[in-house]
C-alpha cells in the first residue's frame, strides 16, 4: 500500500464519519458529500450557488404541517400533471398532437396493459382514473429527482406510505363491495383448509393484507433512494479521493446510473400501479 493509497483510505473514513453525522452538521462535512443531507426532507430548498429558500413552518392541531422540500416537489409534480392533462382533456375529437400524443400513448398503456389486462375490460373501467393518477403522479415525482436542484418525493417513506395506503384502501374496499363483507371476511380462511388451522390462517392472511401495501411502500422508496445514493456516492468519490483521474470514471458511472434511474423512474411507476391492479383483482376474486 503506497502513501497515496493510505491517504485515500483516511479520507474515506473521514468522509464516512462526516456523512454519518447527517444533516445536523452538513456544513462540517468539508471532506465529502453528505448523502443523507441530500436525500432527507428539509425545511430549506438549496440552490447553490444562488442561495436558498426557507420554507414556511406551519403548526396546526399540535402537528408539524410545515411545507418541506418534498412537499414543494410533490406540488410541482401535481401542477405539471394538471398543466398537461387538463388542456389535453379539453381537446375535442379525440385526436391529440405533440406532447398530448405521448401522454395518450401512456394513458392507453395504463388503461389496456395495467388495468384492463389485470382486472378485466368491464370490471376495470372504474379503476382507470385511480390507477392512472397513481401512475402519473409517481412517475412525475420520480422524474423530478433527476432534474437539477430537483428532489424525489417518492424517495421518502411518508409519500410512498400514503400512496400505498390509498392502494390498500382501494384494494380492500373493492373486495368488500364486490364480495360483500361476509364472503370477504370468509376469504381469510381459504376454502379447503381444515377449520382447526383457522387460528393460524387468519393472522397470516391479515398480515398478508398489510404486507402487500407495505411492500409497495418499501419498494418504491428503496428504489428511488438507492439510485440517488449510488449517484451521490460516485460523485462523492471525486471529493473523497481528490484526484483528477477519478473524475471521468466517477462521472461516467454516475451518468450510467442516472440513465438507469430514468428507466427505473418509469419501471417503478409501472410496478406500483400494476401491482395495485393485480391486488385489486385478487381482492375482487378471493380464491
Amino acid at each position: 500500500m503506497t502513501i497515496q493509497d493510505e491517504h485515500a483510505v483516511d479520507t474515506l473514513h473521514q468522509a464516512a464519519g462526516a456523512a454519518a453525522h447527517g444533516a445536523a452538521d452538513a456544513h462540517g462535512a468539508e471532506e465529502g458529500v453528505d448523502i443523507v443531507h441530500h436525500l432527507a426532507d428539509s425545511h430549506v430548498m438549496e440552490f447553490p450557488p444562488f442561495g436558498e429558500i426557507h420554507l414556511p413552518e406551519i403548526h396546526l392541531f399540535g402537528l408539524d404541517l410545515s411545507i418541506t422540500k418534498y412537499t414543494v416537489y410533490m406540488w410541482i409534480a401535481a401542477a405539471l400533471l394538471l398543466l398537461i392533462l387538463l388542456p389535453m382533456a379539453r381537446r375535442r375529437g379525440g385526436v391529440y398532437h405533440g406532447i398530448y400524443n405521448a401522454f395518450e400513448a401512456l394513458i392507453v398503456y395504463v388503461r389496456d396493459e395495467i388495468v384492463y389486462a389485470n382486472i378485466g375490460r368491464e370490471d376495470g373501467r372504474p379503476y382507470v382514473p385511480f390507477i392512472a393518477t397513481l401512475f402519473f403522479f409517481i412517475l412525475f415525482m420520480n422524474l423530478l429527482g433527476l432534474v437539477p436542484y430537483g428532489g424525489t418525493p417518492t424517495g421518502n417513506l411518508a409519500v410512498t406510505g400514503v400512496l400505498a395506503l390509498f392502494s390498500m384502501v382501494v384494494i380492500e374496499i373493492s373486495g368488500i363491495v364486490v364480495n360483500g363483507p361476509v364472503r370477504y371476511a370468509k376469504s381469510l380462511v381459504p376454502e379447503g383448509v381444515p377449520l382447526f388451522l383457522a387460528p393460524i390462517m387468519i393472522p397470516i392472511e391479515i398480515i398478508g393484507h398489510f404486507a402487500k401495501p407495505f411492500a409497495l411502500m418499501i419498494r418504491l422508496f428503496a428504489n428511488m433512494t438507492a439510485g440517488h445514493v449510488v449517484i451521490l456516492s460516485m460523485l462523492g468519490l471525486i471529493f473523497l479521493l481528490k484526484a483528477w483521474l477519478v473524475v471521468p470514471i466517477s462521472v461516467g458511472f454516475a451518468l450510467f446510473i442516472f440513465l438507469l434511474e430514468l428507466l427505473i423512474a418509469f419501471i417503478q411507476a409501472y410496478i406500483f400501479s400494476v401491482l395495485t391492479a393485480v391486488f385489486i383483482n385478487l381482492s375482487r376474486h378471493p380464491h
Partner: protein
Amino acid sequence: MDLLSAEPGLIVWTIVTFLLLLGILWKFAWNPILGALDAREAAIQKTIDDAERLQAEAEAVLKEHQQRLAEARAEGNRILDEARQAGEHMKKDILEKARGESEKVLERAHRQMELETEQAIQTIRTQAADLALRAAEKILERSLTGADHRRLADEALAELVERGG
C-alpha cells in the same frame, strides 16, 4: 431529518395533494380523455366494420354480376348454336328442294325428248312409207294396173305398220 423518517406534515400534505389531484383529474381529465379515447376507438371500430360490410357487399355484387355475365354468355352461345342449327337445317332443305327441282326438270326434259323422238320416228315412218309408195308407183306404173296398185300398196303399208308397231 432522517432518511427513514416519515414526518406527519409530509404525510398530511401527501394525503391532501393526492386526494385533490385524484378528484380534479378524475372529473376534468380522466373522464373526458378516456371518453374521447373510447369514442375514437368506437368510431374506428365502426369504420372498420363498415368497411368490412361494404367489402362483403361489393364481393357479393361482383359475384352476382359474374354469374349473370356467365349466364348471358351461355345464353348467347345457346342462341348462336340454335341459329347455326337452324341455318344448317335451312341449307339442307334448300339443297334438297333444289335437287328435287333439278331432277324434276331433268325428268321433264327426258320425257320431252322421248316424246319428240317418238314423233320424229312417226314422221320419218309416214314419210318413208310415202316415199316407198311413190318409188314403187314409179317402178310399177308401166306394168301394173290400177287395181294391182291398190293391193300392193295396202300390203306394203300393212307390212310397215307391223314392223314399226
